[in-house]
């Protein structure tokens, strides 16, 4: 597979050079070039709780694209598909933490959890006030009674944005942490993969799938999930996925759900908008209003084909934070308007 890079050794830093020179919102950390921090709109870390996350690269725009006002204060960028090391995450924590304290968000995968929690322990040894918040939402990874064993999936973006907006309002570290847990309890995500991404390191597809099959519940690195289904009209696939999501965490008739339709990198906006439309229609048949959607390719695995559907039944506070203004390179404007589509 043809890829447009210079060398495997420099591809991450080449990308970061482009990123920081393209956007006024961000710059590299003072102590470590693999730490991306807010620039033009940074707030005083003694006044505002800072939020950060570390992740392997290769999944852009997440998470560096969300550094800026109203979302994240820093992103610690690891090598391709590899969790950043604990000392690198510690550098990121030290870079942005202040008297108000910090929260390290961790999308739950084994390496990210060990290195992230290890970094938080080391930071606490150095007297830094930081807490680790594990994030998980992939219903295919474990049943509801073992929710804590689930992987982090694109529904974790609800947590980034809601905590980001609440932190911007000046809420305390303890309040933000419990808000984060409350949001996490309300998120369910299920993914469907149609074709593999190609690793920038090896040039090889990351898994294989027959031409007429879709893999339900695949993780962002191609981890196994529920199983295979045959390709058919997308409305049937959405119907099946929504049934599984609602069986996992029911939403009552008359309720509402914020929705993320995330593309994995190789699925078009044309397809994603169709999937959103089917999602809205299916939820409507259950008496649930689908609101304030985020639609696009935000958590990607190179050119992997496929998408995920995430639902979050919000409280009024969560909905307000989800729709709050933000200014980052990549987080979209989220709007909640009641539209009369019958006209």
């Amino acid at each position, binding site marked *: 597979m043809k890829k447009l890079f210079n060398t495997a050794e420099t591809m991450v830093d080449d990308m970061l050079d482009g990123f920081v020179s393209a956007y006024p919102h961000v710059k590299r950390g003072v102590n470590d070039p693999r730490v991306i921090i807010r620039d033009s709109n940074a707030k005083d870390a003694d006044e505002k709780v800072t939020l950060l996350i570390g992740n392997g690269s290769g999944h852009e725009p997440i998470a560096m694209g969300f550094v800026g006002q109203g979302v994240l204060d820093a992103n610690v960028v690891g*090598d391709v598909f*590899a*969790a950043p*090391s*604990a*000392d*690198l995450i*510690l550098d990121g924590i030290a870079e942005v933490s202040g008297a108000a304290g910090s929260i390290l968000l961790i999308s739950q995968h*084994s*390496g990210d*959890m*060990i*290195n992230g*929690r*290890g970094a938080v*322990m*080391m930071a606490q040894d150095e007297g830094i006030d930081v807490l680790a918040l594990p994030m998980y939402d992939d219903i295919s990874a474990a049943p509801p009674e073992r929710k804590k064993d689930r992987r982090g999936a694109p529904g974790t973006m609800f947590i980034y944005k809601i905590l980001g907006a609440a932190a911007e309002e000046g809420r305390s570290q303890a309040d933000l942490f419990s808000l984060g847990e409350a949001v996490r309890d309300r998120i369910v995500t299920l993914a469907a993969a149609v074709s593999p991404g190609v690793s920038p390191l090896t040039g090889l597809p990351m898994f294989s799938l027959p031409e007429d099959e879709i893999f339900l519940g695949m993780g962002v690195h191609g981890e196994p999930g529920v199983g295979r289904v045959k390709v058919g009209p997308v409305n049937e696939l959405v119907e099946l996925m929504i049934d599984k999501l609602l069986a996992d965490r029911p939403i009552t008739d008359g309720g509402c759900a914020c929705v993320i339709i995330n593309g994995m990198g190789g699925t078009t906006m044309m397809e994603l908008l169709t999937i959103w439309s089917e999602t809205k229609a299916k939820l409507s048949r259950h008496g649930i209003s689908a609101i304030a959607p985020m639609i696009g390719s935000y958590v990607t695995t190179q050119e992997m084909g496929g998408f995920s559907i995430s639902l979050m039944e919000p409280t009024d506070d969560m909905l307000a934070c989800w729709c709050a203004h933000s200014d980052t390179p990549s987080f979209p404007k989220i709007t909640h308007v009641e539209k009369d589509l019958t006209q």
Partner: protein
Amino acid sequence: MSAEPFFTSLHQKFTAQMVHLNALDAAVGDGDHGSTMLRGLTKAVAADETKRSKAFMRASGGASGTLFGLILIAIEAHLDTGAPLDVGLSKACERICDLGEVKVGDKSMVDALAPAVAALQGGDLPAAITAAAVGRDSTKVLVARRGRSQYVEDGGRGHIDPGAVSVVIFLETLAEASPNAGGIA
């Protein structure tokens, strides 16, 4: 005191043992334990004073870089600043069990580290080395519960855990490079 002689000597040990450790790891994991450790130690030797363990974490990478790095942080702090070794290693062991979700008997580095920590209370490094070696050898008959080795045939039974081997090398090297190490400061 300085941690430099310890890291220099450790680097030499792992240079000599790399192929052997990779072979041990090939039986229970992906066969790169020796290379990964050596990659980290090469950077640790070149790093500034007090930054050697962090340099190790960065260069060796992955979760194992963090877990072994926590042991090295305790040793480095002891050698650099006289921080008590028993307290440092005890904390490192607790954290490794917590982060790696392992306990004694799961066929991991902890099977060597935990008995060493217990024997070290009171400052007896030679006793800790003996206890670690017994723990290391005990991993041969154990079945892995965590990490990659849980997926190999019979959980790797019949093979010694390379991480436990490395823990013993850490402690032996510490005793050689710094004969007073472990003593109550």
